[in-house]
């Protein structure tokens, strides 16, 4: 600094100030755009891989999958880039449907918890889930993926659609730890009640909305893979 502290430096013209900021902002914009364009395909690919990994994790028997988009009561075959509510059907080597992976989300303790869960339409069971996004408290909310008692809920969590195919036969609810009595109840983790409740809420919400649709489009889902093979 050439000017001593006690002497007020002369004010440069506004044009100089503005031009400085403009130049710096331009350099900044250029850098951001370059890196954005460069990383965009890699990030998209990462996201696709993450979804793929989650699908095969919740449907361990699946060897291939198809994506469907939900349009009111209809399911239509789609690709992963389609905008809208997507569900993923998993098939085994013989092109038999082994389960369906669905997205669910609800407000947790800190932020929205997003997960992908596996649903077996044949038995009407939710058989597992994989957390896609969670900022829950480490050591408490994160127990949902490690607590053996909690995971036992998902051996077969009942989530059948009712006979009219309008909603779930029994709403999924979260109950206090150790008081689970029915197959559609989730035994909460003590100490992680809010996150446990969030899981119950999101599964109920998603189940109420989508399981009847799955039941209605049962034939399409079962035969889609065989058809796509024959084409």
């Amino acid at each position: 600094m050439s000017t001593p502290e006690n002497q007020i430096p002369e004010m440069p013209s506004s044009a100089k100030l503005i031009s400085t900021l403009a130049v710096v902002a331009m350099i900044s914009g250029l850098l951001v755009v370059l890196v954005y364009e460069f990383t965009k395909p890699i990030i998209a690919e990462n996201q696709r891989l993450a979804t793929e990994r989650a699908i095969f994790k919740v449907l361990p028997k699946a060897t291939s999958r198809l994506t469907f988009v939900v349009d009111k009561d209809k399911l239509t075959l789609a690709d992963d880039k389609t905008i809208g509510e997507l569900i993923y059907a998993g098939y085994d080597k013989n092109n038999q449907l082994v389960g369906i992976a669905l997205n669910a989300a609800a407000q947790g303790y800190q932020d929205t918890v997003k997960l992908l869960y596996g649903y077996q339409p044949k038995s009407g069971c939710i058989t597992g889930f994989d957390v896609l996004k969670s900022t829950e408290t480490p050591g408490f909310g994160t127990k949902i993926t490690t607590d053996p008692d909690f995971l036992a809920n998902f051996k077969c969590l009942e989530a059948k659609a009712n006979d009219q195919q309008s909603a779930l036969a029994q709403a999924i609810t979260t109950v206090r730890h150790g008081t689970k009595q029915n197959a559609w109840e989730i035994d909460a983790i003590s100490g992680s009640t809010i996150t446990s409740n969030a899981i119950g809420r999101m599964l109920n919400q998603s189940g109420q909305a989508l399981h009847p649709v799955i039941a209605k489009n049962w034939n399409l889902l079962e035969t889609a893979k065989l058809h796509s093979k024959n084409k």
Partner: protein
Amino acid sequence: MTQATKKETPLTLDVFTAGIWKENPVFVMMLGLCPVLAVTNSVLNSLAMGIASIFVLVCSNALVSALRNFIPRQVRITTYIIIIATFVTLVDYIIQAVSLDLYNKLGAFIQLIVVNCLILGRAEAYASKNSFTKSVVSALGMGLGFTLALVMLGGVRELLGAGQLLGYQVFSTQFEPWVVMILPPGGFIVLGSWLLLINYIQQRKTGKLIAADSASHCAVKSESFS
């Protein structure tokens, strides 16, 4: 920061090592404590945060130093913030491209590097007054010092809070994790303990120096005064 006023001081090893120990941004200058407390619940998170901060610190200090004669004083803070925000945005994209898992774990703290006072502080106090090479070297030292501090906290917290180090089980499964260690209070406790230890060591060091120094003088002085 005494060199700041004298532009002609040569580039020495001290410029680099000052940030690692003598002027460690966390343990000595107490800068950027928000990420220090927030993301150090595991070694991996600490390391990733440290590397991201090094990148932003080095790049922004380099640019600030390169443009230091061009930026008028009146808009310098604005300019620094734009420069820092640019590199933070770049880091944000790069981490997403490298690993989504890591990105999800670090959460909002990547974006919050923008307001890490360590980076703005170094831009204002050092890079804006020193040559390009010196600024880069000093930023690298400061960044490494910051990372070292983060990892020191993260290591203790992960070890006690989860019984693991870098995801590997260190203690037997019989060990009951101290959950408090990976929660915010644990951050304060561990930071406090490290500060206690480091200040104790430094005090002993200076204490010894003073003692040794005065010992030689005292013998003469005490005689003459008594």
